[in-house]
């Protein structure tokens, strides 16, 4: 029997954004079994299905780019597999695309270097409440009054991008360290300006090293001298980063096939 790897592009929206990364993995694992997919298993005392997600999405974020590489024990029809999965996935989780990847190709997880985010920032003039940033999708802090509009936020983004360095304090397991966030921001611009929030689209480093969407939002607020009252995050796409060139998963898949055929010397020419 021939193995097969499917790269699923899933959407995580609505209530599903409240499912944590680990719980999302477990939810997919259950769905594979319900859909009757012959997912390959790891060896050992505690075998688990061979699949990986490209990126760990923060709790509260929605996404249209949840990529799961799933290894199957035998070949199935990819479209059929996607349909079967969609029959057994809970509300808010849907397979939107499926691509076959050669067995043995590097998992997307190991290739991801950047991610394109939408951030809805609800900002307020500083003063009334604590300026600590809420978690992604966090509750608003107290404090009233009109916040900055898209124009002001756009100016701040321009200012940030013009800086050679952007120091960012990161706390991890009680240890505080400062890193430079500037090289981790590929691009950032205001997309829309409506209602109480300003929508920013940003491409940030992902994988290792990475800049979390919430950290970026905090930087925007700090730079503007604002207070972040609410943040809503949505993932648009992930990319491999080749010296600044962003390569999307579809192309990575095509390239994997080209390499595969080249290695097999099947006369595949560019």
């Amino acid at each position, binding site marked *: 029997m021939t193995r097969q790897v499917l790269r699923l592009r899933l959407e995580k929206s609505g*209530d*599903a954004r*409240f*499912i*944590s990364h*680990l*719980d*999302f993995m*477990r*939810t997919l*694992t*259950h*769905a*594979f*079994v*319900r859909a*009757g997919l*012959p*997912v390959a*298993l790891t060896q050992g*005392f*505690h*075998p*688990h*299905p061979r699949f990986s997600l490209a990126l760990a999405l923060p*709790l*509260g974020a929605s996404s249209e780019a949840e990529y799961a590489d799933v290894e199957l024990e035998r070949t199935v029809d990819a479209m059929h597999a996607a349909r079967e999965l969609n029959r*057994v*996935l*809970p*509300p*808010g989780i849907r397979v939107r695309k499926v691509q076959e990847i050669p067995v043995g190709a590097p998992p997307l997880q190991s290739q991801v270097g950047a991610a394109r985010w939408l951030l809805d920032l609800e900002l307020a003039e500083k003063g009334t409440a604590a300026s600590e940033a809420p978690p992604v*999708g*966090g*509750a*608003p802090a107290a404090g009233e009054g009109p916040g900055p509009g898209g124009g002001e936020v756009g100016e701040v983004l321009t200012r940030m991008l013009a800086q050679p360095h952007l120091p960012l304090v990161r706390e991890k397991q009680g240890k505080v360290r400062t890193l430079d966030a500037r090289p981790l921001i590929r691009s950032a611009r205001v997309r829309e300006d409506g209602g109480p929030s300003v929508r920013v689209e940003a491409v940030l480093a992902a994988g290792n090293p990475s800049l979390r969407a919430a950290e970026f939002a905090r930087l925007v607020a700090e730079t503007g001298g604002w207070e972040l009252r609410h943040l809503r995050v949505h993932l648009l796409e992930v990319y491999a980063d080749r010296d600044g060139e962003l390569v999307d998963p579809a192309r990575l898949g095509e390239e994997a096939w080209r390499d595969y055929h080249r290695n097999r010397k099947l006369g595949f020419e560019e």
Partner: protein
Amino acid sequence: MGERAEEAAGRERLLESVEKPARYLGTEWNAVRKDHREVDILFALAFPDAYEVGMSHLGSKILYHLLNRRGDTAGERVYAPWVDMEARLREEGRPLFALESWRPVREFDFLGFSLQYELNYTNILNMLDLAGIPLQASERGEGDPLVIAGGPCAFNAEPLAGFFDFMVLGEGEEVLDEILDLYARWKRQGRVGGRREFLHRVVEVPGVYVPSFYEVDYHPDGTVREVRARDGAPSRVKKRVLPDLEAVSYPVRPPVPFLDVIHDRIMVEVFRGCSRGCRFCHAGMVYRPVRERSPQAVVSLAGELVRGTGYDQISLASLASADYSAVTRVVRELNERFGPCGIGVSLPSLRMDSFSVDLAREAGRVRRAGLTFAPEAGSQRLRDVINKNLTEDEIMGAVDAAVEAGWDSVKLYFMVGLPTEGDEDLEGIARLVEAVSARGGRGGKRLSLSVSVSPFVPKAHTSFQWEAQDSVQVLEEKFRFLRRRLRIPGVNLSWHDPRMSLVEAVFSRGDRRLGRVLERAWRAGCRFDSWTEFWDFRRWEEAFRSEGLEPGFYANRARPRDEVFPWDHLDAGVDRDFLWEEREKAYRGETTPDCRWDACPGCGVCPELGVAIALRGEGQM
């Protein structure tokens, strides 16, 4: 923003503000979300503990399924909201809601609690309060739901008597439908006569207990003089028991939680009841007799559950699964069918013998689980007293088999404070642990042992219902002794807080007067009492003091043979005389065999309830 959009936004903000929002979504796979306009009865199935505990409970899965199988009923779940959610609900003034619809539970027809553990009782009051439903049944109006309860603690839920409109004794499968049919008819008749009339109708259903139809008189010393039935209520309420497990449809599509809950796997109930006859065991008495499911049914349900849930682990659930008469064949068959797909089998609650270990090894072919055994007592004498029917040879045989099979760690459970226990029995625990530890792992590696010690809690309806619990001080001394004796490399000793066990003991044999203590403790801030991070004994002490009730009266007092118990009118089918005889035998160190394989010891359940032991291991697969 329209009203709907505003509501949705409010819901999202609420979910954004709690640590584990996935507890409250109600959109799990297999969750049943019905249009309320198309049903007549809204039933909120409540579990008074955290989501992760409630979602692990088999009985609730069964009831959820049976409720939603009815065309006229929507059954929705509600758990004790975690403290962060509770704070937000109180801040917003938002009433407690059912998960599937997010509709306030006070708009439901029924709010039914599962009573599994005495230390959950404050959560019940907290949930009623959050729901905006009056705590006392007598204060509820026509618009309030009927607040009802079932589960093992209902066999003595006297401390809760004032909070419930009615309770159900025994197994819910059949009686639930009878109650709902009655309710639907009453509702169609325009709720004639109000709640009071419905209670008069429902009290006629066997197994239904309406506490307000009973009056309790006390002696001056605080013991019960008499429990009198009024309003046409039966003088004794007999438990309901399902004669044939296979006669009722089993939940093959239970909701699959997003979160990693405590028992996150398929549960196939292989049998109900246990007749091993351990004299301390409440479940062993109130779930009698043993009724097995046929191997064919077990295997076929397992298959449906795999497809219905997607879990990769099948647990053969019961009070002692190695006793299932077809267990070896079923484990082998399940492994053959599902092993190649990476789906494993596990057996909870194993006896400590080599047969069980062999089974665990066979079950663990795909995914190996930890081994947990409960010798309960350290000496042969005391194991005979409690009728554990387990010899030292069997114990050592189990350890050798486990080491041989490659396990390098084992969990052991003991109880201290059992009736007749002396120093030599405690020394026995220490010696047994030493002996097990010395058997060692393979290659000179020590066997790592987790030893859990819990205080004995005397329970109503058991042979030890007359016994005194050791005082907290005595229990602490005993634990200190064990801690000194068990400073052995590779042995990790843990201890259940004796103060928690004291409160458990008070409520497990409590009377109606304790309702006031409960309410006071809750008002003082008690909830999630079984969670060490929230447990606060001082509040409980204060509540007892304020109500003028002495915990020792309930927990640490030996009762005379003829004392009237607060639960005497609640009938689990086992003769009180049989329980007393068993107690006498305990003090003589005599054991009683299991009626599945030996003579009937005359507990009375089968003739009393018109049921019989059902062993079905011979059936085909």
